[in-house]
């Protein structure tokens, strides 16, 4: 079996082998992932899945040539063979633009609390949870059926680097995503709960949200294109801000595939918007102690009161930009660990009451860009939307496509709710702690 001792022993031998072959920079990460997925549809379990994998990531920097190798095996002969192939080819490779050696400074690693609950990794508990949900949501209700999944992951990772860095981390995360359908008027609502422990997955809230929302109206109309004030739910906020945060990676900036080029220190969002990535926050389902280069992660303020404070960096892009390494490697592409929006002043209920004429969008998906540099994108309504008038619900709406510029969305935020929620789902891979927000004058189109 692949115990931690076995993986560490293999990492030590590979480290020695690479050093003996003249490799200057080495980071080896060994990861063991045990996971369960319970997928369900139409009130039936579709499949129960179990995974038990070991993964070895090796970063090599030699003579300013670099590569990242990923192995889903601990077979030493297979790994050495691939490493040899690379080392033989290395002299024929050109140097990588802007490369710098791994940093040599001494570091300390901080560990967030409440991120490891191994006793919750029980598939039977997961199956029971789904059974309870099916019964609760569909009994005596207009909700005809539910579909979704429960993901349960236990990750043990050890990292060793040629600059003397070494660290281990262990964490669990649980993600329940449930989509309820009301077939009589063809609408759906998706609710989500993520946590580092299964016992914190809030099935009651999910049940209430789905049953409550899908019975707010008995009619659904196609949206009329035009400019609207929007109230975006946490799932919709997470999707859009997830895409926007990716575009704050220094990789996208240096390659002109972001609307945030040359935006450091500038106002890119409304004053109400502060965006953080806090991988060391206790209980963060996206917690991370070290990045892919072995750099300690840190809590990073990305946007504060609408002003852009930093791009997301690894040690290479930080060197190129003359900036501080934010601990977001990706060796080649820095990327966020989690997305956190600051809380606002209004209770969510007050935010709803504040709107005179607005559309509430409960979820979006398929966000795609026509032009990353100019931030031209569109995103589609995934689940139910509500037409609101002075706090009253007029009807459900369908067919909504947000057709906008990134800058318009960010600068036109007029209200942010106080309550925030952790969310993550199939079309949004980053754990995100986000509130409801209101955005004014958003362009909405639909198909003809």
């Amino acid at each position, binding site marked *: 079996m692949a115990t931690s001792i076995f993986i560490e022993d293999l990492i030590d031998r590979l480290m020695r082998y690479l050093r003996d072959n003249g490799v200057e920079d080495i980071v080896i990460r060994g990861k063991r992932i045990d996971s369960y*997925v*319970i*997928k369900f*549809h139409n*009130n*039936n379990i*579709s*499949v*129960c*899945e*179990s*995974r*038990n*994998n*070991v993964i070895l990531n090796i970063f090599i920097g030699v003579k300013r*040539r*670099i*590569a*990242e*190798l*990923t*192995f*889903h*095996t*601990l077979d030493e002969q297979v790994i050495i063979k691939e490493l040899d*192939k*690379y080392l033989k080819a290395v002299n*024929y*490779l050109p140097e*990588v*633009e802007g490369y710098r050696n791994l940093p040599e400074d001494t570091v300390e690693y901080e560990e967030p609390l409440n991120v490891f609950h191994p006793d919750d990794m029980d598939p*039977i508990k997961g*199956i029971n949870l789904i059974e309870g949900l099916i019964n609760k949501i569909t009994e005596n209700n207009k909700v005809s059926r539910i*579909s979704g*999944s429960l*993901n349960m992951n236990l990750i043990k990772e050890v990292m060793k680097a040629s600059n003397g860095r070494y660290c281990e981390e262990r964490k669990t995360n649980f993600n329940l*995503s*449930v989509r309820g*359908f009301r077939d009589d008027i063809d609408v*759906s609502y998706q609710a989500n709960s993520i946590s580092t422990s299964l016992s914190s997955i809030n099935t009651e809230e999910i049940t209430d949200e789905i049953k409550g929302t899908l019975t707010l109206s008995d009619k659904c109309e196609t949206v009329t294109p035009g400019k609207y004030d929007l109230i975006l739910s946490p799932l919709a906020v997470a999707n859009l801000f997830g895409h926007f945060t990716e575009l704050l990676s220094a990789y996208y900036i240096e*390659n002109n*595939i972001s609307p945030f080029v040359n935006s450091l220190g500038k106002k890119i969002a409304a004053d109400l918007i502060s965006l953080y990535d806090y991988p060391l926050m206790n209980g963060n389902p996206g917690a991370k102690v070290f990045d892919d280069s072995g750099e300690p992660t840190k809590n990073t303020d990305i946007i504060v009161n609408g002003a852009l404070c930093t791009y997301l960096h690894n040690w290479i892009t930080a060197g190129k930009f003359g900036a501080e390494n934010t601990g977001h490697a990706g*060796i*080649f592409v820095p990327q966020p660990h989690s997305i956190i929006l600051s809380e606002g002043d209004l209770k969510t209920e007050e935010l709803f009451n504040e709107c005179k004429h607005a559309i509430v969008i409960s979820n979006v998906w*398929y*966000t795609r*860009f*026509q*032009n*990353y*540099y100019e931030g*031209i994108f*569109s995103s*589609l309504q*995934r689940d139910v939307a509500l037409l609101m008038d002075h706090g009253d619900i007029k009807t459900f709406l369908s*067919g909504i*496509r947000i057709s906008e510029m990134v800058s318009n969305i960010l600068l036109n935020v007029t209200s942010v709710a106080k309550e925030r929620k952790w969310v993550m789902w*199939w079309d949004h891979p980053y754990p995100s702690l986000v509130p409801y927000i209101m955005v004014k004058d958003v362009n909405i*189109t639909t*198909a003809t």
Partner: protein
Amino acid sequence: MLPDVEDLSRLVIDRGLELDADYVEFRFHATYKESIKTKDGLLSSHNINYLYGVGIRVIINGAFGFSSTNILTESNLVRAVEEAISIARASSHLVEHKVHLGEEEVSSVEYFVAERKRWLDTPMEEKISFLKDLDSEISSLSKDVSSYRLFGLVYRKDEKYISSSIGTEVKSTIPITYLSYLLTVKKDSNVIQKKRSIGGAGGFEAINTHEIYQRTVENTKEIIDVVSNWRRSPKGTMDVIVGGEVSGIIAHECIGHSFEADRILGREGGQAGESYAKKLSVGEKIGTDEVYISDDPTLPSSGGYYLYDDEGVKARKKELIREGYVNEFLHNRETAYLFNTTSNGSARAACYDREPIVRMSNTFFEPGDYSFEELLEDIEYGVYIKGYMEWNIDDKRMNQRYTGLESYLIENGEIKFPIKYPVLEISTKTLLNSLDARGRVMEFYMGLCGKGEPYQLIPVWRGGPAIRLRGVVVGER
């Protein structure tokens, strides 16, 4: 050393049957993937991925269980099949519609795609020279524009051994080579960006087979012309011709995905979505007589090539829509049983640790008999959307949008000048009922299609000829 997978498969299947499984399927799946990327002609990254392991699928008491591991010891594989059975059994009381598999012919076969110029034997210098030469030619195409160029040369090879308790035994090896690029071209204050992937099955020779170099240079010339000369797009109701790149994404998104039987049954309801085809049946008319759309994994040198699917079923061409009528859906063995038909070999798994689910392969509009000039000739006023950048489609695959990139005004049967970002935002119903002619020249593009939980990205081709849509609404960005 790779393990003796045949021995391991017998061990797993025997243990599964001992524990009363009704069906046991074993898939050893190795994937080697290498990507070399350049930025403006300089090497920017080099990734090598070597993934292998075993996926085990069982049916017990009418419930599916799946277990995967890459720790390929006998004891761990026995543990894996036992776990698949245990979790399936524990969930079976929540499976109202018990899983049955369609009765298909049992396959025992070995096949492979030969690399005429083996990727691993091709010197690294040659691969990098290809990217540098291409970058150099593209950067020197025009002195009037500035450009930023990201290229990625990708090789992927999948080797599988699939066996099952009903006697299936399929061995396959399929390599794919393709180029992905993202170009940014600036002309004064105008900026245009284009993403595209071209390539298909084979080794390094795919570079030539698919004319990757020439097609990329030609596409860049088009982009430079468009950003240098574009004018405002017209809007309103008019005739539209879309090129093969756009007809390909339409075939994939609004027909291919909708015709996946598992989506129709709601199995992707919480993930990739459902389908308008839930309300359709085979034989129903949904488009004009000119609508012919197929999915064919057996196309030689294609990006979505295979001859046997990941349930061991022999693959074949599937004519999804013929003369505007629904002809068949995409099936695996589970959905085929529920539709009272046989599997048409559409089960695919992206990696050893993913379950095989219903997927597309190479999806396309069939060619017609029009030349491009004939498609144009009676259009008084319209637009030609040759290529696109932004696209999206709703959960049920009815409300979709394709925003043109390489796009032109048509006037009196002639292409006049480039236009900026015409928008085709259209329902599937309107689209399929406005199509009146198909060109005869086919184009195919690589894509990575996402579906499933956990997410599965699989290589596909999307393509077709230019097609003409009569009287549809065009918008502008």
